[in-house]
């Protein structure tokens, strides 16, 4: 038979016949088909070979040695060995039980403890103005317009020969004058506000700005 011209389908069919039928059991059509591929002698010997192989394959049937399996088990144990406590095997139900106990104990502790409530009062700053003493006059000159530069500073005068008297634009300027106190407070508030700026520039290192604010007020 020419192997080059035999299709895969033909080979499948031929193998099936060789496996299952001796030549004399073939139908006339099958005999005719087989005759185009093989001679009767070839078919018979090939068919007998298939039958003999079926018998002979049962003749070899050996079992693996137990030693081989032991060696492999050791290799597996070494390959997947875990260090220290991880070697200890814990069944799933034990792990679940421990987790449940921890949860319940923790939940119980949490429920038995009273919750402390903390009242936070907001503080309100109250500014009280004291009445000014009437026994002496403190005059101070207040500039009608903001002074633009350090060179045009407040002018102090002692012409009335009164102690601690500073006059700027004929306004009393003493430490006890409510107007001065208020101005100082506003100045300090502004200074603190600028110092406490979080996202902007701070006055902390800006001495020029500090001087300017103090000078203005």
């Amino acid at each position, binding site marked *: 038979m020419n192997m080059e011209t035999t299709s895969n389908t033909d080979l499948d069919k*031929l193998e099936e016949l060789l496996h299952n039928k001796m030549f004399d059991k073939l139908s006339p059509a099958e005999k005719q088909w087989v005759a185009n591929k093989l001679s009767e002698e070839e078919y018979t010997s090939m068919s007998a070979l298939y039958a003999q192989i079926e018998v002979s394959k049962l003749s070899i049937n050996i079992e693996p040695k137990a030693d081989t399996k032991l060696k492999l088990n050791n290799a597996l144990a070494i390959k997947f060995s875990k260090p220290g406590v991880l070697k200890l095997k814990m069944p799933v139900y034990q792990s679940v039980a421990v987790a449940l106990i921890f949860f319940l104990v923790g939940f119980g502790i949490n429920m038995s403890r009273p919750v402390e409530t903390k009242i936070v009062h907001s503080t309100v700053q109250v500014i009280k103005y004291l009445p000014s003493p009437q026994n002496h006059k403190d005059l101070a000159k207040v500039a009608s317009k903001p002074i633009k530069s350090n060179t045009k500073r407040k002018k102090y005068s002692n012409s009335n020969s009164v102690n601690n008297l500073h006059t700027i634009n004929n306004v009393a300027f003493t430490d006890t004058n409510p107007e001065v106190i208020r101005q100082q407070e506003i100045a300090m508030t502004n200074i603190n506000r600028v110092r406490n700026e979080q996202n902007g520039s701070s006055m902390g290192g800006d001495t020029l700005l500090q001087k300017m604010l103090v000078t203005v007020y």
Partner: protein
Amino acid sequence: MALFKKNYSTKSDEELMSLLTRGGQSAFDELYKRYSKPLLNFFFRMLNNDREKAEDLLHDLFLKIIEKPDSFDGNKKFNTWFYTLASNMIKNEYRSRQIRNEHEKHTLANVNELFELNSESFDKNLFNNRLESELKKMDVEMKTLFNLRFLEEMSIKQIAEIMNCPEGTVKSRLFYLTKQLSKKLSVYKPELN
């Protein structure tokens, strides 16, 4: 605990391999149970009844899946992949030890043993020994083909994957092999003629 115990016998080879990658001893046991005997017999036949060598190769083959379980491609059938490894080991063994020469010595020993057998088993043993002898003379590829098809009873498709050739080639080689063997063995079995 029976409630959480897995039934490995119902799992597929591929599932067992997946479990083995995480160090599953039970998965390994099941794979060994399924494949150790067929593969030992495959090695035994391919190595001309060299039991010790067959055991060694069986050990090395299973060691491969322990050492590198990730080398298994999940898209393939485990059975095909495993026999491909086994076939490659056989080829390497043939190359390294020039096993054919050793087989010739073995054949002589087998023939001597043969004449000590009783007459009832004579024909069967004569045929088996002659078949073995003819297989030994063959190329390792043809011998593997014969074993996979007739003794391991694998499909043409599986053999094609293992031997890395088209299915048509496997079929035509098998046909050619059977024809050649039947010619040579017919003299040892009168009813074959």
